[in-house]
């Protein structure tokens, strides 16, 4: 220190840096969003980009490594992987979204009821979820699947949906427990607001932010669950093309060392999951920030 005294407190902050940072996409998951859009669009309009019929069994060209005609190669049954990836992605995404909708709906109703019920009923319901949670998820899926019969796209979404609502329900319940004793809910009750009015007007807007992240993540874990189940042979059969069922032939692929059968659908799967995760994280951070400012 050259000077004996120094002015403390007001210091000039260089403003150049701030200008640089203030671009619109700052902090937003542009790359993830873009990629996800691309994949979703590709899956939705798969008819336009598919070069082959994804379910056509071309027995002359089976198990071919990627070349010019078969961009991503073909599988054991001679189906074109490139077309299958887009076509199957549609089903994977569909399952992810439908099962999330199902589980969220169950969770909201269950969580809200449990959260606003008297203590004994609440304890009972929570014990029930705990018991359900302590059954290994895989076994639950096998049971429900067996009851429903043969696996189809809808039945598998249903199975994943009704086996994955518990943790969201628990979060909603905790939130509702906290919110329902706040004075604006009491005030609303005094004015004569019914249970559903309060649920819709006061509770839902206040817990949506805290479950939003969970819901997005639920899409992700539903897609993972579908592919895992299909891979293990208890999900979709090989004829119904999805990212998971494409990999159910992987055991054979290991024997013949056909890497494209494993790597290509897997890469698509992981990129999608990664994008969803990034979006979810962005959502969570944003929501948290807003709450803290309030």
């Amino acid at each position: 220190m050259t000077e004996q005294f120094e002015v403390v407190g007001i210091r000039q902050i260089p403003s150049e840096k701030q200008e640089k940072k203030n671009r619109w996409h700052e902090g937003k998951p542009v790359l993830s969003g873009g990629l996800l859009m691309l994949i979703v669009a590709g899956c939705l309009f798969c008819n336009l980009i598919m070069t082959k019929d994804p379910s056509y069994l071309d027995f002359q060209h089976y198990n071919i490594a990627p070349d010019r005609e078969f961009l991503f190669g073909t599988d054991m049954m001679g189906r074109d992987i490139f077309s299958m990836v887009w076509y199957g992605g549609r089903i994977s995404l569909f399952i992810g979204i439908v099962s999330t909708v199902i589980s969220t709906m169950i969770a909201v109703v269950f969580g809200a009821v449990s959260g606003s019920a008297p203590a004994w009923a609440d304890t009972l319901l929570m014990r029930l979820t705990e018991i359900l949670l302590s059954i290994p998820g895989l076994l639950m899926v096998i049971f429900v699947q067996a009851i429903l019969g043969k696996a189809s796209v809808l039945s598998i979404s249903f199975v994943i949906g009704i086996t994955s609502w518990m943790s969201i329900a628990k979060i909603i319940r905790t939130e509702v427990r906290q919110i329902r004793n706040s004075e604006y809910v009491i005030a609303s009750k005094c004015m004569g607001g019914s249970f559903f009015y309060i649920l819709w007007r006061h509770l839902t807007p206040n817990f949506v932010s805290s479950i939003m992240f969970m819901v997005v993540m639920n899409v992700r874990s539903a897609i993972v669950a579908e592919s895992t189940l299909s891979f293990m042979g208890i999900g979709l059969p090989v004829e119904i093309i999805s990212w998971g069922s494409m990999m159910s032939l992987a055991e054979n692929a290991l024997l013949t060392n056909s890497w494209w059968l494993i790597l290509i659908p897997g890469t698509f799967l992981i990129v999608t999951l990664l994008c969803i995760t990034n979006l979810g994280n962005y959502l969570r951070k944003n929501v948290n920030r807003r709450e803290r400012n309030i």
Partner: protein
Amino acid sequence: MRRFLTFLISIFLLSAVVFYMSRLAPGDPLVSYYGDRVEKMSPAEREWAEEKLGLDDPLSIQYIRWLENVFHGDFGISYKYKMDVLEVIRGRIGNTLILGGVGFLLIFVFSLLLGIFCAWHEDRMIDRVICKAGTIISCIPEFWLSLVLILVFSVNLQWLPSGGAYTIGREGDAGDRIWHLILPMIIVVINHLWYYAYMIRNKLLEEVRADYVLLARSKGLKKRNIMFRHCLQNIIPSYLSIMAISVPHILGGTYIIETVFSYPGLGTLSYESARYQDYNLLMVLCIMSGILVIVCNMIAQTINERIDPRVKMNELVCTMDITSEITGVAGMPDAADTAEVTRV
């Protein structure tokens, strides 16, 4: 005492739920007992077989009989293996415990180290790289990771075996067993590591921003001292409680890995028993996992009550995300989750 009672009731309910669910699922348990011979059986033979296995009574009577037997220490026989259920499990449990237990310890240690490392280098290049890599890795479904590793290390490089617990004929050889464990173990660890490391990192960073750290700094304590003596000490208890909840989570995650590697453990066993209606075996497996979940939750609760006596029973469990048990892929490391723990 009250806890023990709730524990018993929970287990009892669990057994009832599993019992009814598994019986309601269509399927013929005779197939698992007699194999293909079932199809050639005459109706009379069938009836006899069903009576012998006690399958002709109504469900509730079957359930009561099962309970009675359990109280006498008799868990029944496995239809498929035609052995006492406990015998079957005894043969497999060691494998799962090694895979899950050692995996758990490795996760515990490495996530702590990695979390501290990242928190130490907060926002520097290395921290960012690790964070990004962690996010990517935690997105990979474990079955796919297993496939890729098998593809690389056993099919192409042929360094490591692709499945099983030992080479046939060398069952007693410990080295051989370890050799077979490497790949599954790597996957167990990699899959969960980042979830917990990230949690440690975030908790540490939260702690570092507390006022007492400022005080310690102004008193002239070294950065390293503050970090390890004070911050780390403050987060360890809550980390322990989270790890306690995660025990079943990690063990559940080994299910899929076991199946991919056809590793003879409890995971493959319960998968088989559920698919082939091996009821007696299934019940015991489910109840074992149920006990594990409940006991771990209780441990976590006890730890949390030690930290903060205001924490009430029941309130904690809602904090962990156990959904992903199906897939074993942990939900993303989640600051909201950890915040929940501290808030409750």
